[in-house]
């Protein structure tokens, strides 16, 4: 199928036509397309890349599957997602990562790049077969025990060192477990009032500080998952200034939601790391704009109804986010220049840099002639009111219910094939 997209702005530039045939973008030289998409008013971005997605398969197919999560991702403008390892069984062997990878290919909606566990069973005791996962069909390059911190400093050092052999990166869920036993929400005035055990900012900052020193010491790559505090921003800033090879992500929810949300005791707002203070939100937005935080990653964490419709302390942490990520980020105004959306910066933080960190060479290319036809079309003028029920995800734990957000994904293409057209998934 050949597609002609007319009058579309690539990354905010003067509108032009794009011709898509054979999986690549070409100049339109008058060929007859099979389909024409009117791109008037739309912006073309390289397909978004999510470095942090929980697809729940295998193990919790009632909450999400590779297919439903892939569909949600495509609807959010994503063309690739990195699937976290905390499934059941854990993705700590070549067999499991290849299974996830294959399920992703079968769904065919986004490229599903499995992340491998750092330690066997996420238990934090001994290294999983990182090399076998790297050499598998899934070609794993990112390793993470996400949900758990690799807390043992010696084990973390070894992991950082070991993955150098295949240019891997350790993505750390930074949480000193001894400082967060029983923790339910951000330690501060609200937690004190609500009688919920606090998750102190220092529990994150202490691990990031340790890990950047370890990464520096062994000359390895470190990626910090869901950085959530102003103090963490400063630790990463200093490390980068010294030349440490560290990258960091922020989630959309940490850019807009704050710990006051817990006042309802509605666990839809329970997430790990927890929602922080307005000052943290301010610092995270500034750090994302400045590049101290390299990327936005969703930490899309679907949960079944019974895991959220309960007491706060018994609920599982996490919120869905694939379908709303771009809109939430746009709503913050973090990626603007002179009051206008800086589309080049959006592409940098949500596509090119995450693709580079993950080693996904097919992704993160500006949608211009010669590039793979892996991109998304956004209508920046549209607004939408979030309804948790209107979702491709199996789960409805959406914290933005009722919020009015800017921007809408109109179409998404993966290697020349549309995965979303007219705002609807094609399969």
């Amino acid at each position, binding site marked *: 199928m050949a597609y002609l997209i007319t009058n579309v702005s690539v990354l905010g530039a003067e509108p032009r036509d794009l011709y898509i045939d054979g999986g690549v973008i070409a100049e339109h030289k008058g060929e007859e397309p099979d389909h024409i998409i009117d791109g008037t008013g739309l912006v073309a971005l390289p397909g978004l890349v999510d470095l942090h997605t929980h697809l729940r398969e295998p193990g919790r197919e009632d909450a999400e599957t590779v297919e439903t999560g892939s569909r949600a991702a495509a609807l959010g403008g994503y063309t690739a997602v990195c699937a976290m390892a905390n499934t059941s069984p854990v993705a700590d062997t070549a067999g499991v990562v290849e299974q996830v990878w294959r399920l992703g290919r079968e769904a065919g909606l986004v490229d599903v790049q499995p992340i491998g566990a750092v330690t066997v069973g996420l238990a934090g005791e001994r290294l999983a077969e990182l090399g076998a996962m790297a050499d598998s069909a899934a070609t794993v390059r990112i390793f993470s025990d996400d949900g758990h911190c690799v807390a043992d400093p010696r084990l973390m050092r070894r992991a950082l060192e070991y993955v150098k052999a295949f240019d891997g990166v350790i993505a750390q869920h930074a949480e000193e477990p001894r400082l967060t036993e029983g923790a339910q929400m951000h330690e*501060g*005035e609200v937690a004190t009032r609500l009688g919920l055990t606090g998750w102190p900012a220092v529990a994150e900052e202490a691990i990031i500080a340790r890990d950047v020193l370890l990464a520096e010491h062994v000359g390895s790559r470190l990626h910090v998952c869901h950085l959530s505090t102003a103090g963490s921003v400063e630790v990463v800033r200093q490390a980068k200034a010294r030349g440490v090879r560290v990258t960091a992500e922020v989630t959309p929810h940490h850019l807009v939601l704050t710990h006051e949300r817990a006042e309802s*005791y509605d666990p839809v707002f329970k997430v790990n790391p927890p929602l922080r203070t307005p000052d943290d939100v301010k610092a995270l937005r500034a750090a994302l704009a400045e590049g101290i935080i390299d990327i936005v990653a969703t930490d899309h964490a679907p949960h079944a109804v019974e895991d959220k419709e*309960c*007491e706060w*302390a018994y609920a599982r942490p996490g919120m869905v986010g694939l379908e709303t990520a771009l809109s939430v980020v746009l709503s913050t105004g973090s990626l603007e220049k002179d009051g206008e959306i800086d589309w080049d910066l959006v592409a940098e933080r949500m596509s090119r840099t995450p693709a580079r960190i993950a080693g996904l060479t097919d992704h993160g290319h500006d949608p211009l002639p010669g590039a793979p036809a892996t991109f998304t079309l956004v209508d920046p003028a549209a607004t939408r009111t979030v309804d948790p029920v209107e979702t491709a995800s199996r789960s409805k734990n959406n914290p933005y219910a009722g919020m009015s957000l800017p921007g809408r994904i109109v179409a998404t293409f993966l290697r020349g094939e549309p995965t979303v057209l007219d705002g609807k998934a094609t399969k």
Partner: protein
Amino acid sequence: MIKHLRDAGDLDAGNATLILDTARELARLTGGREVKKLPTLRGRTVVNLFYEDSTRTRISFEAAAKRLSADVINFSAKGSSVSKGESLKDTALTLQAMGADAVVIRHGASGAPHRLANWVDGSVVNAGDGTHEHPTQALLDAFTMRERLGRLAGLNVTIVGDVLHSRVARSNVVLLATLGAKVTLVGPPTLIPVDIASAEVSYDLDAVLPTSDVVMMLRVQHERMNASYFPSAREYSRRYGMDGARMARLPEHAIVMHPGPMNRGMEISPEVADSPRSTIVEQVANGVSVRMAVLYLLLGGK
């Protein structure tokens, strides 16, 4: 009147004072040697939904409801949790079907009464939730202070001990601020929560005693030692326990309170607990009156 009493924040000064005044009136009507019953809540159903053992609190609520002629159902759900047994929501739907006019809930998870209030039509009364609040305890404490000292506004109330884990302290801080008293929290810094609003903090008990009208001693659990909140019971007792020598530093009129159950010899010495300044026994009696007032007003009795 409000519909639910989920925490002390549900009460403004007017409603809180109305509860205290009503409690006094109900105590007058039903007190004395032989306890009289009032027909006020005849035909209404009050469910005691207790996920934690607390015989004292359950009996107090049960007595309060019965003195108002309500039907009382005790629903002990101890040991239930989402992982085993029925969920709170399913239990709520059951109580709803039973036609509960009020659900008195004691639960180990902070905020459980707030969740419950989403799922039942009747009133929800918090009888202690996790480390969050225990608002009827604060009401009975305020009632006791007012009976003994004649007022609440302007009183200096010192709350001593494990504030971090105390739902009694949290409710008292909020309610006493609403009613115009000044609260000072005293304890080892490890047991004082961060960023606590509407209260002063001191680590020096002896320094605040001479200006305290009320000293409230909180129960300190021995297992806190294992989590390194303080080194030993002896050191805790020496620095933050109320004994005869410390009691002598209090002004003449000052009272000593304890929500019970006490660790005699830990946070309070027998000499203090049994002294005329101690309100511990009348706190129990006042508890019934205050809980009667709460049920009466929330259920719109007349």
